[in-house]
């Protein structure tokens, strides 16, 4: 059985995603009989007003948001790890998280008025902040027509620290908004309902499709930049494309779900340990694996201390690390970076 599953990674991961999706929709603070839920989803019966609202307006969009976020974070994490050829790379390496945090804190500190945009000011500002920071990091690190990877990392770390310091400053001097900003930074999904899912979908879809198609390029890049260039790969263009696509995914994920760590770092590694580092396989597997992992973490976050909801970011850190350590110990083959 185990060999059967291990030899069919896509089947296994797809099953996991389906299972976690169903569990996530089935569990919540209000008990809806699972049979009714399934029948309602399959269109056989219709639930009463309250349960229908809970299912279609709260649980379904939340589940999809979390699944999209997990998929976006894990895939962009795998792409960054391949791009930088560094096992410590995660989607937040070149400033997405701190830029998004700064954008969100700025908007929360200034208490935007409640116009229709005002409700979405925080994720919009977070998204813009993330993209502006990545653009700044890229232009700082660029040397003529090339972007040395080491410089990119250093510039990313420097600008991240700067953005974090600025957002700490604004949090302290923003009067009442400190707790709200902290809650956002801990990684709770700030918005619910369908609008954030619809808003997030285009960016994540575009980013993910680009990344999924770049598996072969990433494989070639592992040989080193010069050998790859000599083999005919347009290295600089590939780097830009990967940075843009991965940052789009990560920025959208952070903007609508807050700061969720460890998914982008640990899931690709875990998948690499089991199924190897061929990026043509690793990237789609990261998509599926990230979605199911975050769905599971979110489920736990909602159920452990009901009716209160833990920020998902705390749970991914607490649960993700021991799981990864266990996996490390069990890995018999050498590590694939």
């Amino acid at each position, binding site marked *: 059985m185990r060999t059967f599953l291990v030899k069919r990674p896509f089947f296994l991961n797809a099953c996991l995603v389906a299972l976690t999706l169903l569990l996530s929709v089935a569990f*919540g*603070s*209000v008990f809806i009989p699972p049979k009714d839920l399934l029948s309602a989803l399959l269109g056989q019966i219709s639930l009463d007003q*309250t349960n229908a*609202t*809970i299912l279609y*307006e*709260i*649980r379904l969009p939340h589940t999809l948001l979390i699944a999209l976020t997990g998929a976006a974070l894990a895939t962009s994490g795998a792409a960054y790890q391949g791009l930088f050829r560094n096992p410590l790379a995660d989607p937040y390496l070149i400033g997405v998280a701190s830029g998004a945090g700064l954008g969100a804190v700025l908007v929360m500190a200034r208490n935007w008025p*409640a116009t*229709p*945009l*005002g*409700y*979405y000011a*925080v994720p*919009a500002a977070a998204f813009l902040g993330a993209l502006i920071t990545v653009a700044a990091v890229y232009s700082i690190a660029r040397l003529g027509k090339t972007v040395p990877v080491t410089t990119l990392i250093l510039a990313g770390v420097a600008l991240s620290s700067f953005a974090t310091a600025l957002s700490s400053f604004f949090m302290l*001097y923003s*009067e*009442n908004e400190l*707790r*709200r900003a*902290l*809650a956002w930074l801990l990684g*709770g999904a*700030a*918005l*619910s*309902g*369908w*609008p954030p899912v*619809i*808003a997030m979908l*285009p*960016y994540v879809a*575009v980013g993910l499709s*680009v990344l999924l*198609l770049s598996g072969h*390029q990433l494989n070639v890049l592992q040989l080193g930049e010069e050998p790859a260039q000599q083999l005919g790969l*347009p290295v600089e*263009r*590939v780097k830009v*494309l990967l940075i*843009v*696509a991965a940052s*789009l995914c990560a920025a959208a994920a952070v903007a609508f779900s807050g700061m969720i760590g460890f998914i982008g770092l640990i899931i690709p590694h875990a998948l690499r340990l089991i199924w190897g580092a061929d990026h043509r396989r690793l990237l789609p597997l990261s998509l599926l694996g990230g979605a199911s992992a975050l769905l599971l973490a979110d489920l736990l976050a909602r159920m452990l201390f*009901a*009716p*209160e*909801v*833990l*920020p998902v970011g705390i749970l991914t850190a607490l649960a993700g690390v021991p799981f990864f350590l266990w996996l490390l110990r069990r890995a018999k083959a050498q590590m694939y970076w």
Partner: protein
Amino acid sequence: MKFNTLFRTILLITSLLAACGAPTAEPTAASDTSISLTDGLNRTVSLATPAEHVISLAPSNTEILFAIDAGEQVVGRDAASDYPAEALSITDIGDTYAGLNSEIIVSLQPDLVLAAEITPVEYVAELEQLGLTVFWLANPTDLDGLYTNLNIVAQLTGREVEAIALIESLQGRAATVEAALAGVTEKPTVFYELDATDSSAPWTAGGGTFIDLLITKAGGQNAGAVLDGDYAQISIEELLVQNPDVILLGDAAYGVTVESIAARAGWDQLAAVQTGQVFPFDDNLVSRPGPRLIDALEQLVRLLHPDQFN
């Protein structure tokens, strides 16, 4: 597909998608309504009949609802609502900062959700999307604003009579305080401590806050009035210069005692510490914009001018 073409296509699609606007709020249908009020977010909230199933999203709102005798109409309250004791037996719907539970809120089938200034505006939008009626009650800036809020909540819950009686009683108590202080010229300086984890720069309430207002009404002078912002840190040096006559420990609920502050570096030089004018204070009275603000006023006067008011 050639890599170049792919690259350009992706860039084009991305820039086109960036033009996608945010979804707009759906317009609500107008209907024949007898109660129509404007809330703190400039939204018009309409109810056909006074609300019978209210969910309170803040402890201040819970206190207001119970004070105007609408406690029976409350079906859900936030985790921090602990006054009066009857509120504790009402369904807990989560905590503003840790996360309010939308599923439980929807399952309670409220006809009114009473939000406060601590409720994020995004959450108000979310609840509206779920089809609920939400009223966002802004914080008052003075006592008249408090009475206005009491009136608003009374109209929403059909308790106008009780509210009038409550407001009259509160106004009477405030007037008694004012009368007792007539002719008193001496204004003791008060330092209201919110948090002193860093004892060289404790947090206090700045000028223009309700704490500042109540201290002034109680015949005192807020040491933190020189600072900007609602909550600000004052340095111990500035505190030594101002040398407050009275220190109020708003963080007494977190274990700060009269004895513990004398142990802090430099604090034993303060006149208030030396003369024993350090008192614990229930911060919930001043931090919740509800009827207990008058309780806070009376307690402050008792501490600052014990001869005039008892």
